[in-house]
């Protein structure tokens, strides 16, 4: 090939390399904006208030846990943590159980209203939860469960159905029908098919639903804030919001409280992120 041709090839591969580098720069830049604030939060939680002002970027002089102690003792963070766990776990268990059952019914069982039921559930994705706050408040008031954990768990379960069913029906639709045929021919009842065959296969999607529901419930502010009035029953987000009013300039303690609040979400995420990302997407695609 002549010089010109060679130079052209070299230039275009050089151009490609430059584009590659640019891509990495863009991606890394955004990755930094995602990671650095959290890293900053973590580092700052070990600083004193003065250090925050003097040295906001760098490492703390000493890794002192004074802020965590003040968050836990004065801020009662552990109580809130426990309440968050109780509510989230209960909501997840109940939501998963009932949503897998109804998803199976919609996806695999034969009945006329299955499509309609699916649509009704999907509609729920658009309902803003707090359009229901006042009515729910009224209802819970009348049946007397206000200021109990149930008052928070029940609405969360109800509102988790749309997403959960979305994900699960998407997955269940992909199971080959022969599986049930074989089971029926073996004389299995519906319950046996569901609990012993379907659920084990759907483990991955079920975990996804569990994680999604867990994160939504764990992170929610409004429902616990309205339906719970005893401080001893409040959850982490509420405690955190209150912390802000209580300690408006003890920023270091506030930062420690924020770290305590987000650590469970991050841990769950790191352990199970594959599930979250794959499962949610599967629902979106097959749905």
């Amino acid at each position: 090939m002549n010089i010109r041709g060679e130079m052209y090839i070299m230039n275009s591969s050089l151009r490609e390399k430059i584009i590659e580098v640019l891509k990495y720069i863009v991606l890394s830049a955004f990755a930094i904006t995602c990671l650095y604030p959290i890293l900053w939060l973590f580092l700052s939680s070990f600083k004193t208030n003065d250090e925050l002002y003097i040295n906001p970027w760098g490492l703390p002089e000493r890794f002192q846990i004074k802020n965590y102690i003040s968050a836990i003792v004065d801020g009662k963070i552990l109580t809130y943590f426990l309440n968050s766990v109780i509510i989230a776990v209960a909501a997840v268990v109940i939501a998963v159980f009932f949503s897998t059952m109804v998803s199976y019914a919609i996806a695999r069982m034969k009945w006329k209203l299955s499509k309609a039921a699916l649509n009704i559930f999907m509609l729920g994705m658009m309902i803003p939860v707090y359009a229901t706050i006042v009515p729910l408040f009224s209802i819970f008031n009348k049946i007397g469960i206000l200021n109990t954990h149930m008052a928070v768990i029940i609405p969360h379960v109800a509102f988790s159905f749309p997403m959960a069913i979305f994900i699960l029906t998407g997955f269940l639709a992909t199971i080959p029908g022969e599986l049930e045929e074989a089971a029926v021919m073996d004389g299995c009842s519906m319950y046996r098919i569901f609990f012993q065959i379907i659920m084990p296969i759907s483990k991955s999607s079920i975990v996804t639903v569990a994680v999604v529901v867990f994160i939504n419930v764990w992170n929610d502010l409004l429902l616990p804030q309205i339906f719970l009035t005893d401080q001893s029953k409040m959850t982490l987000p509420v405690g955190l919001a209150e912390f802000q009013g209580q300690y408006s300039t003890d920023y270091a303690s506030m930062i420690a409280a924020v770290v305590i609040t987000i650590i469970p979400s991050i841990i769950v995420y790191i352990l199970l992120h594959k599930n979250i990302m794959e499962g949610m997407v599967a629902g979106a695609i097959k749905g």
Partner: protein
Amino acid sequence: MRRKISCLFLTVLMMITVLTGCQSGKSDESTDSKGGMSEGETLTVMCLGTAADAYKETYQEIADEFSANNEYGVTVKFEFYENEQYKTKLATLMASNSVPDVFFTWELSYLQPFVEGGKVYSLQEAIDADEGWKNSFSDGVLEPLTFDGEVYAIPTQKSFCAMFYNKQIFEENNLQIPTTYEEFLAVCETLKGNGVPPMALAATDAWIPSELIQQISNGIAGIDLFNGIVEGRRQWNDPAHVEAAKEAQVMIEKGYFQDGMLGMSDEEAKSQFMNGKTAMYFMGTWEASNLMADDCAIKDVVSAFALPAENPEYNNISVGGVSCFAISENCINKEEAIAFLKYFSSVESQEKILYEQGRLPSAKIETDESKLSPLVSDLIKLSNESTGLTTWWDRAFGAGEGVEFNNKCLAVFGGDDAQKVFDELQTFADDNANR
């Protein structure tokens, strides 16, 4: 396998029921009607208080004294909540019929909806039955707590706005306490000229600029402005308000506030004053407990004066009000609650709060000068000199016009046109009347 799953499920369900059952059980206890006076009953008192508020301890001490000595054998427990939490919580409790026995409240339209909803216990009977108690309240102080001729809450602490100032800085700059509005502006000008920020103010919480503007407008139009708006005779965009707003803007322009005022939180502005960086600080008298605390650098040189009025005939009409306690209608131990209120508003308790925390009592009590810190005795002097008290707008009108007034004052501090802003407030008030 199926059995394992169903077992697991049943166990979890049981656990949940037990756990939540425990929780609801606990909340049931506090509203459980055990009927009559039995030993070991608890009276809950819901009150405002953040981590920074030192008076919480004193309040609980008074409660403990009452618990130890009362004839009913009832224990009183305070529950403290931060401002916004408190408002949300009280609103939800009111709507759900589970208000705590005794609760803190502000006067006028904060309390009014609850009274009209039948949630508050009328104290008229108890007051009429006890002449001594009735007379312990100064004239007119029960007015804002009276609805339909019946009193629904007892004022305990009085607070009003004063201009705190640093005596040392004043001396260093050869300044006297201003007695007229012009003198006040001259004081600010001198301080500014000497490089000392005259006033510290935080413009992040809307009520702070608002109380200053309200104070200035008191000085322009007197107490009739306040009464007029409450009674509907005068408008929110009264020229006095607009003029007061413009005055504030002039002060901002001339640099009479600290740098960075617009973004500074109250804590930060306050600490500038407390560290001797600014000469004055306009705030409510509740701040006294912080200003006389040991860790305040200026505790020995701080005092206060009343902001002089633009029209001298309206001097000493301060922005201020009373904080109160009320009893809920579904409190089971009403007698005990009344006994506690009487104890809390008694001279001994009020003196304790005054001497230990510098919080002014709403009643007129004889004060022992020797027990008071100089700041508090100055404040008491001011309190006795005051000729009128106009409560903060967001207490008189609550959420709605009151909060909007605060917002508008914040906008004024941000540089918006005063007339336009108050016209908007008037429109809002007109619309709000129909909602």
